[in-house]
């Protein structure tokens, strides 16, 4: 018996990325654009979705995949919208994972009516760290940061703020009541992810929600333009 060094040189997340590519191929086959929404718990992802989806996103056929460690509270909240909503619990055979990964999405593909969708919105588990590491086969990633969390978050969680192409600053109706300097937030964000698109919203009052809806509406065209010929 002797010891042998084996050269590996493999990204530890290769296995996940391979499955993510397979998901992407399946989404592309059905012409579904997929957006992955990430944030800390309580930033307002579900409330924003309720607001955006209440009036629909133009003529797009939209479905939602809700990722939570446990329970179906979020899916229940979206039930009145009469769109396909699938709840994915990460404690269901996944050991209570704090994020969605490509394999979990893969296992849920059979429950999604992909042929009847143009846009699939995936609401990730509330967590500012792990979801940033795991691609799921999405076309676009957005994150929601709320003013209640503080204006220093881009510097504290640069991985997350760099892993998305849209940052939604939510709960701006609370600005008079919290210590949050929007300029300071934007300055920190610009250091961490120069040039990233920022939208300011209040899911409660509806301010800025039309801009977010318009961003969603443009995603399928963009995905089509980016697809390999």
């Amino acid at each position, binding site marked *: 018996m002797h010891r042998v060094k*084996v050269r590996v040189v493999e*990204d530890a997340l290769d296995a996940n990325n391979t499955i993510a590519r397979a998901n992407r191929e399946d989404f592309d086959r059905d012409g579904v654009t997929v957006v992955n929404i990430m944030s800390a718990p309580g930033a307002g992802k579900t409330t924003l979705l309720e607001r955006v989806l209440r009036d629909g996103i133009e003529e797009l056929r939209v479905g939602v995949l809700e990722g939570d460690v446990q329970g179906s509270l979020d899916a229940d909240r979206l039930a009145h919208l009469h769109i396909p909503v699938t709840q994915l619990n990460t404690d269901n055979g996944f050991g209570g994972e704090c994020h969605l990964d490509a394999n979990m999405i893969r296992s849920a593909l059979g429950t999604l009516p992909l042929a009847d969708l143009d846009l699939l919105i995936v609401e990730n588990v509330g967590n500012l760290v792990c979801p940033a590491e795991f691609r799921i086969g999405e076309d676009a990633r957005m994150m929601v940061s709320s003013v209640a969390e503080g204006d220093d978050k881009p510097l504290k969680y640069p991985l997350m703020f760099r892993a998305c192409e849209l940052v939604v600053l939510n709960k701006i109706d609370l600005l008079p009541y919290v210590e949050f300097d929007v300029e300071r937030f934007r300055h920190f964000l610009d250091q961490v992810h120069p040039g990233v698109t920022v939208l300011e919203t209040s899911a409660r009052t509806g301010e800025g929600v039309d801009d977010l809806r318009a961003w969603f509406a443009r995603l399928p065209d963009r995905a089509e333009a980016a697809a390999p010929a």
Partner: protein
Amino acid sequence: MHELSIGSAVVDTAVKHAAGRRVSLVSVRLGHLRQVVPDSLSFYFDLIARDTVCEGARLEWEIVPARLCCEPCSHEWDVTEPAFRCPRCDGARVVVLSGEELEVASIEVHQEEPACIV
């Protein structure tokens, strides 16, 4: 906190390449920008490695410094803080040259002596 997820991915990768052989050492390269806490990764690695061929294996790490390059002005620089604007031209189109690694570089396995073939 992502050390648990990453530790799990590291063990999976090592187990795959070990192909059934017992592993004594796993060497990883961690990019500075991935914000991995090595001691925490090591802790989770030990836990997750239980009941696999990696059980008891040592985890060895190298931190890869973050180096950026500004596309328009070609300036290259190292960063330790999350500041991604070019310090020379203030440009935003910046490429990460290194610092995003999350790589299993090598493993050390116990190998049976090859049987003598007559």
